[in-house]
């Protein structure tokens, strides 16, 4: 018996090794085989999270592997980026990457660089806007602008945080003589209540995030930061037509670690493209008041990201002048 055990053990070991070798070989031919983790660098329930859960589910159906969504919030999305970048470049993890995190490349000093990741797709683009409560004394953007010019720094605008894209846009406007007081409310509930309760005069937000309050006529937009008027808001002016060269749309993209094998990048990018083309996703974009042509493939996405980064750097240079 004492002799048999090591022999049996060796045989089992050999069998296991053979098994791993075979499955390993198959694994290299066929991708994906194992679950692919989908990192959301933000808390649950927010826009980035909703996108990942929506798209992840659609990709599960087409790629036939499970795609668990993992929330890794913190440091304006940097924590999630760190999580993505410490892993292998093997296509087994991807991450949502949004405009606020991207802005760190222009404003902050993140531990990661733009060459560390590769975009698979821009999935959603939506313009930001200035909103007021429906019963606000400001009927139009012109009213708001007039008062802001008359009393510089008096009007309070609720924003996400200082140094954010929200704040950058407002500082750009301040440079044009429209000086407001940006008040940071990190918690969305507090941010919305600030204008509904009359504690702030206006709110900087994406229309999709306050959709229910727009539809309920609790809030209305005064100005969109975009180049063209939105189909749903034909009467509301956009920044471009007023001569303000600031758009900085909110975008949500999906990225993988740079160095991921091109074949795997293509499989993931194709799955995202198919998801973006579906009727279900188009309806999701419409519900979010997002640009119906939000989707950009890998090549265009890379150009778009570079363009946005240049725009932000230009904006910062303008502000600091």
């Amino acid at each position, binding site marked *: 018996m004492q002799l048999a055990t090591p022999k049996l053990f060796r045989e089992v070991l050999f069998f296991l090794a053979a098994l791993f070798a075979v499955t390993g070989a198959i694994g290299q031919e066929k991708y994906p085989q194992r679950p692919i983790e989908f990192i959301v660098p933000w808390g649950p329930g927010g826009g980035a999270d909703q996108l990942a859960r929506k798209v992840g589910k659609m990709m599960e159906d087409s790629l036939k592997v499970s795609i668990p969504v993992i929330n*890794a919030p913190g440091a304006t999305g940097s924590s999630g980026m760190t999580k993505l970048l410490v892993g292998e470049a093997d296509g087994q993890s991807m991450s949502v990457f949004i405009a606020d995190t991207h802005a760190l490349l222009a404003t902050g000093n993140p531990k990661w660089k733009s060459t560390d990741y590769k975009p698979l797709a821009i999935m959603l683009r939506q313009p930001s806007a200035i909103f007021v409560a429906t019963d606000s004394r400001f009927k139009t953007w012109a009213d708001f602008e007039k008062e802001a010019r008359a009393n510089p720094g008096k009007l*309070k605008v609720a924003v996400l945080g200082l140094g954010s894209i929200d704040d950058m846009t407002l500082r750009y406007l301040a440079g044009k003589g429209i000086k407001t007081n940006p*008040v*940071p409310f990190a918690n969305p509930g507090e941010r919305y209540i600030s204008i509904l*309760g009359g504690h702030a005069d206006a709110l900087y937000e994406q229309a999709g995030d306050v959709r229910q*309050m727009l539809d309920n006529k609790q809030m209305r937009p005064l100005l969109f930061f975009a180049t063209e008027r939105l189909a749903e808001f034909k009467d509301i002016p956009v920044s471009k037509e007023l001569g303000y060269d600031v758009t900085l749309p909110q975008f949500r993209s999906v990225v993988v670690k740079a160095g991921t094998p091109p074949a795997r990048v293509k499989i993931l990018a194709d799955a995202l493209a198919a998801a973006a083309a579906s009727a279900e996703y188009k309806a999701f974009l419409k519900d979010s008041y997002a640009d119906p042509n939000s989707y950009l493939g890998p090549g265009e996405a890379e150009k778009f990201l570079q363009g946005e980064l240049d725009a932000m750097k230009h904006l910062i240079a303008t502000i600091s002048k």
Partner: protein
Amino acid sequence: MEVINHLINGFASVFLPANILSLAIGVVVGMLVAVLPGLTLVMGVVLALPFTYSMGITPAVILLTAMYITGTYGGAFTAILFKVPGEPLDVPLLWDGWRMAQKGRPAEALGWTLFAAFFAGLLTVAAMVLMAVPFASFALKFDAPDYFAIIAFGLTSVVALGGASLTNAFISMFVGLFIATIGVDEIYGAERFSFGIPMLADGVEYLTVMVGAYGLGEVLVRFEQGFKSQPLDLGAKVQTKLPSFAEAFKLRATFLRSSVVGLLCGIVPGAGATIASFVSYGIERQYGGQKEKMGSGIPEGIVAPQIASTASVGGHMVPLLVLGIPGSGATAVILGAFLLHGVQPGPQIFQTQAAMVYTLFASMFVSVIAMCILGYFAIKPLVRVLYFPEAITSAYVVLLCFIGAYAARSNLTDLWMVALFGVIGYLFEKYKFPIAPMILGTILGPTAERTFQTTMISFQNDWTIFFQRPVSATVLILAIVALGVPVVKAWRDIYIPALRRGRA
């Protein structure tokens, strides 16, 4: 009258198979989530959300709300039996709840939480049904200074948590507040005390502090003693012991105070169950009829935090339904479920979706009852766990602490944090520093700082604004009194006699 008709229809539809099934699942899963320390009810609701995609809107929302309510109750078990709070909101239950269990009356302590959760659950739903619309407009009145005042009041409950030494309690609280400042600040994005270490730049999750210092720290203390303390000799006392009506009636003032605190804290966005729980305990300690005995294991100290945290649920649902504004993590997820199903909460929801809204209200009544029935039958087997040798239960506590901490954000460094704070908790315990004020500081610190900074920016550094607004002025003055009285007392009792002796 119309409300009653709607409610009757609502109750009828709760008992449709799909609805009652998702309610049952919600209550059971909510209970499990709450019992696991570190896995918070918010996280539980998030994890459940994808499973509701394929359901209809009504069962989906019923499931999530049932989890939410049950989540404010289930953690009481671990807090009282093992001195490990299942949820942050259960921390105040350690002070009187665990002590009562320590004195050999665990079933009685659990009975009080059961009764309190039952009372608060029914009350909060009733308040929600009757007063949703006026409550919602009340929520709009709060601005940053008021949020700050409420948090500051929550922090003053430190005087209640000191045990023997007020000085040590303050030291502990400031350690907690310091821990809360580590990492990237929310307003300016500046990195603080991170020394370039990525693990610190993320900030220290208060969950890891809580789970480590309480769960692991407690196990380390027992380990040092060689797991020698005898399993509780409960004898025939393992009966679920619900308080009698007469006993409960004696606490009527506590019930009233805590219910009001819970509802109000719920309505204020950003406050929520945890703050409600702390504030309510603090108020009981300052103004309650038994304030001198608080912390020694009396029912008032169990009832006050439990009522407030469960009562806050209804308060939170009000701004969500009436204004479409989520005041907390859990309601943000429920809002997500509404939107995914194409239902938009807002003032019109009572007309456009009356059937669904009243089914939801009715389901909350039923959830409260179901959760209490489940709790009632769980008490007996759970109390038996205390019969097991300490080493075995301790092993499970350690396991649960690590699983819970990892589940919170799937971050391995959090496990190191739990281990680190386990050691800190052990040292605190050994050198007679109370742990609770540190936990209080780490939980409330970030919100206190954020609301203070927002106020300063919003009102251009005019600090007098805190005393110009009625809500913040009242609450802050109460907080100052709460802090001042024990300090003056200590001065009178210790410093003056010492001075006299010195002169003599």
